[in-house]
C-alpha cells in the first residue's frame, strides 16, 4: 500500500459521443469511472478493445470532453477541476503538471527533432541551450542517432517518430504522465529503453496512467491494474 496522497482523482466520470451525421446517435463509452493515482504509482488501464481505455486517457488530458463527473489534478499545490475547465486552466495544467504520450507524433513542418523535443522545456522558461542539451540526452538514451537530430521527423520511421514523441513528453519532468501505447511500434531493444525510462520516472515520483498492450511492458512498469469495462457490461 502506498502512503502517498493521490495527485489525480477521478469520480463518476461519464463520456459518450453524439454523432450528428447518424441522426444524433449517442455512443456511451465511459460510465461512472472512478480512480485515483499517487506519486510513484503506475496504473495500467486494461480491458478489451473498444472498452474506452484511450477515451479515458484522452479525457484525463482534457482532450475529450466528458459530459459529467470530475477529474481533479494536483496543480501548483492545489486541486484543479478539469471537467468543464476554462481553456487557459487546462493549458496551464498541460504546460506544468501533466504530460501525454500519444501513439503518433503530430509533426510540425520544418522543425528539427531536437527542437521538437526541447520545445516543452523552453516553454517552461529554460534557455534553448539547456533544453537542447537535455533533448540530446533523451534522444541519445532512446537510441536516435545524432545525425537525425537536426532533421524534421516527418520523414522518420514510425518507431523513430514514436521515440521523438516520448522524449518530448519526458523532457519537462511532469509530475503526472499519461501514456497511450508508448511502445506500440518499437523493436525489443527500443522497447526496453522506453520501459527503463518510464520506470525511472515512476521511481522518481511521477504518477503514471498508461495503456500497454504488450504484457511484458505492462508487467515491467505497472504497479496496479484498472479494469475498463465495455459500456453496457455489468460490473
Amino acid at each position: 500500500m502506498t502512503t502517498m496522497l493521490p495527485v489525480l482523482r477521478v469520480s463518476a466520470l461519464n463520456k459518450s459521443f453524439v454523432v450528428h451525421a447518424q441522426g444524433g446517435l449517442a455512443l456511451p463509452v465511459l460510465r461512472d469511472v472512478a480512480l485515483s493515482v499517487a506519486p510513484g504509482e503506475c496504473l495500467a488501464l486494461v480491458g478489451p478493445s473498444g472498452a474506452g481505455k484511450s477515451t479515458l486517457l484522452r479525457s484525463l488530458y482534457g482532450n475529450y470532453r466528458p459530459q459529467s463527473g470530475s477529474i481533479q489534478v494536483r496543480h501548483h499545490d492545489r486541486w484543479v477541476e478539469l471537467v468543464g475547465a476554462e481553456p487557459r486552466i487546462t493549458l496551464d495544467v498541460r504546460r506544468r503538471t501533466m504530460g501525454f504520450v500519444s501513439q503518433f507524433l503530430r509533426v510540425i513542418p520544418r522543425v528539427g527533432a531536437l527542437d521538437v523535443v526541447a520545445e516543452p522545456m523552453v516553454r517552461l522558461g529554460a534557455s534553448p541551450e539547456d533544453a537542447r542539451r537535455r533533448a540530446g540526452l533523451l534522444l541519445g538514451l532512446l537510441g536516435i542517432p545524432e545525425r537525425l537530430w537536426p532533421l524534421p521527423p516527418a520523414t522518420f520511421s514510425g518507431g523513430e517518430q514514436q521515440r521523438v514523441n516520448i522524449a518530448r513528453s519526458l523532457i519537462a519532468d511532469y509530475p503526472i504522465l499519461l501514456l497511450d501505447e508508448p511502445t506500440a511500434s518499437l523493436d525489443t531493444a527500443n522497447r526496453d529503453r522506453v520501459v527503463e525510462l518510464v520506470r525511472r520516472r515512476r521511481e522518481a515520483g511521477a504518477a503514471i496512467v498508461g495503456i500497454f498492450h504488450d504484457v511484458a511492458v505492462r508487467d515491467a512498469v505497472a504497479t496496479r491494474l484498472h479494469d475498463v469495462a465495455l459500456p453496457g457490461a455489468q460490473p
Partner: protein
Amino acid sequence: MNAPLLSARGVTRRFGGRIACREVSFDLWPGEVLGIVGESGSGKTTLLNCLAGRLAPDEGTITYDSAAAGTVDVHALSEARRRLLARTEWGFVNQDAREGLRMGVSAGANIGERLMAIGARHYGSIRQTASDWLARVEIDLDRLDDRPTTYSGGMRQRLQIARNLVSEPRLVFMDEPTGGLDVSVQARLLDLLRGLVDRFHLSAVLVTHDLGVARLLTHRLMVMQGGRVVEHGLTDQVLDDPQHAYTQMLVASILPV
C-alpha cells in the same frame, strides 16, 4: 494574467437586413492565440474587423486592457485614439499583403515606418532593426531597399508580418494570413508565425478556414456558422471531440494526406 486582454460582449453586426455576426462574447487572455474558424460567409472576418476597431458593431461592446490607458471601450474611443492604439499596441495582418503594406516604398521603409510611428527617430538604429526583422522573417538583406512590388506573394506576407511585429504589439489580429499561398510557402510561414508567437508570447486572434492552420497556431477555437459561435474550446478538444453538428461536419471534411 489577472485580467483578459480583450473582451467581447454580445457583439452583433448587421449589413442591411442580414446579420453578419450575432451576440458573440468571449475573453482573450494574455499569451493566448484564439482561432476563429468557419466557412466563407460565416461572419469570421466581420467579427475580426469589429474586434480590431475597424468596423463598429450595432450592439455589444469590445473592451481592451491597454498598456497606456488601462481598460478602454474600443468603439467608444475617438477615431484618433483608436488609430493610435492600433498603431502602438496592435498589429493587423491582412490576407492580401498589398493591403497591409505600402507598395510604393522599400521593404526597409515599410518596417521603419512602424518604428517611427512609436517614436523611433535614429536612422541607423531603425535601419538596423529593419535588417534584423528582415532576417527573422527569412528575407535576404540585399532586398532591404527593394519595393514589395518586386517580392513574391510569400515574401510579401512575411514582410507584412515583420512590419506588424517590429513594434512589439501586445495583440495581433490576423485574417487568413496563409490564404492564397502555395503549400510549401504556407508551411514556411506557419513555422515562422509559430516561432514568433512562442518567442514574443504574442496574444492573437486569427481567422482561418483551414483547420490545419488552426491546429498548428492556435490554443483555442471558436467555430462560427451563420454569424453565431456554435462551439468553442481548446483547439484539440474542438478538433478531436467536436460536439456540434456543424463542427463534426467540418472536421469530417478534412482531406487526409
